[in-house]
């Protein structure tokens, strides 16, 4: 077993677990600034998490084992997902084991369990949220896969590490396909992370909430795990976007300096990404649920166009 790969993998996992709540806090802070509200502190998400971990868990009488197991499953899926994405180094233990398609599968697994848990107690809000979540998920997933296929066609591999390595070391060239799939990926990640055009992460209004509706019944450490998992999901998606479309600065061979530099670059890129996300969320209004197919259909269209344009313009020349 490669010692360096193990070390990089562990470092990446720890960085993800620690930084993820801060990214969410940063996005909330930026959003508050742009909306002329007084911003919560950067570490607010940590305080919330620790508060929730110290509280007792309240369970509904008819909650099954699945309801109790779901937060742990969702959390481990998201932790694994953020470990798979090569953010700091491309030499990771998991990189031969799990490729881009496995990553999509992990997200789907988490989605299935949280939707089942939403329906488990049998409240109407939970079922409503689960339905909407699956509805959005089945529209977003093909678009996400198409984005990965374009990147895979460019680098001739579905392994994320190889994709990042290829994209980071190509000479400068204009790839219309990457631009298209970048926009498609952004739209998909807005939908998947329950962000504003599709869902509002801070809402508790019955008619509009999607993600919040599913987790209404959770409390205590279960809720903390789910909140942390949402932070991790946002973190994983941001890292994925960075890895696919702005991959420069990733460390490769064993080199502590490169690894430190990669961490610094990653934090800078994440800060910029979080700011952009807050900007998008401030500038756009939430759509009606029935407009979501059009939004995600556009994402799918862009991703397919990216693939076609790649095949026509960039390949086989």
């Amino acid at each position, binding site marked *: 077993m490669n010692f360096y790969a193990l070390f990089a993998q562990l470092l990446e996992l720890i960085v993800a677990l620690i930084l993820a709540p801060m990214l969410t806090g940063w996005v909330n802070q930026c959003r508050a600034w742009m909306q002329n509200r007084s911003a919560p502190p950067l570490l607010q998400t940590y305080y919330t998490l620790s508060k929730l971990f110290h509280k007792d868990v309240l369970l509904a009488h008819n909650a099954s084992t699945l309801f109790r197991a779901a937060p742990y499953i969702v959390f481990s899926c998201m932790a694994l997902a953020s470990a798979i994405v090569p953010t700091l180094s491309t030499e990771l233990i998991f990189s031969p084991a799990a490729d881009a398609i496995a990553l999509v599968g992990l997200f789907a697994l988490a989605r299935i369990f949280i939707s089942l848990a939403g329906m488990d107690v049998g409240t109407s809000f939970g079922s409503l949220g689960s339905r909407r979540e699956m509805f959005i998920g089945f529209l977003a997933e093909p678009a996400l896969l198409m984005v990965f296929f374009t990147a895979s066609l*460019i680098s001739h591999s579905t392994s994320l590490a190889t994709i990042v390595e290829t994209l980071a070391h190509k000479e400068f*060239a*204009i790839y219309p396909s990457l631009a*298209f799939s970048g926009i498609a990926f952004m739209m998909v990640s807005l939908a998947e992370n329950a962000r504003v055009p599709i869902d509002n992460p801070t809402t508790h209004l019955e008619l509009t909430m999607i993600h919040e509706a599913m987790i209404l019944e959770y409390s205590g450490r279960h809720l903390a795990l789910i909140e942390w998992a949402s932070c991790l999901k946002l973190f994983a998606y941001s890292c994925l976007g960075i890895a696919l479309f702005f991959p420069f600065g990733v460390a490769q061979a064993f080199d502590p300096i490169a690894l430190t530099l990669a961490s610094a670059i990653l934090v800078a890129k994440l800060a910029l990404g979080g700011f952009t996300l807050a900007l998008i969320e401030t500038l756009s209004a939430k759509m009606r649920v029935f407009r979501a197919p*059009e939004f995600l*259909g556009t994402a799918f269209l862009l991703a397919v166009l990216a693939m076609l344009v790649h095949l026509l*313009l960039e390949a086989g*020349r």
Partner: protein
Amino acid sequence: MNLSILHAVPLAGQVINLCAAIMLLLGFAMLAQRRILTLINLFMMQGAVLAVSTAIVALTTQQHHLLWSAGLTLILKVILLPYILHRLIRRLSVKWDIETLLNIPTTMLAGIALVVIAFNVAQPISQLSGTIMRATIGIALACVLLAFLMMITRSKAVPQVIAFLAMENGLFFAATSATYGMPMVVELGIALDVLVGMVIFGVFFFQIREQFDSLDIRHMERFKER
């Protein structure tokens, strides 16, 4: 790693490819657009991209007559035609929303199918051509077909005319990418035709509206000889 092939394409070629991709994207945007004003603006943007890409081809290949056609495109399709269209819809006080015959996601899927067909059909043609932008013939053909689809799926006269003009954009792009453009006389003739066509369409719009109180083309199906 097959990337080394890409570097053979010079920067100008890459920019032209980017323009082609944007043209295709704008074609889809027009297909999906519900508002008539945005539709005109998208048409204007497509004309601008076309002018830019033609100018780049002209400068990189020393085909100076193409500069003239780039300028013509700029004046005609970016300034004059959108201006006429804006005036027309204001004078006609057209309803701002467009009705489509098919719903928009279905139209988009049909559009993707058309793009696949266009790319396949254009493959042999582009192998025969020797220009630096031969790969974009497929995209030009796809733009033409998308404009066709837009003409079919729209029921009002104004969007159909915009689709017709967008089709001309695609044809022009195809001509530039396949053979570095048509002879100047032909190009001037086409430009004049489009302009005159636009004026005639404008007159038609008023006539149609006077007869049927609406710009919906479906009313014309009821024409019968008495």
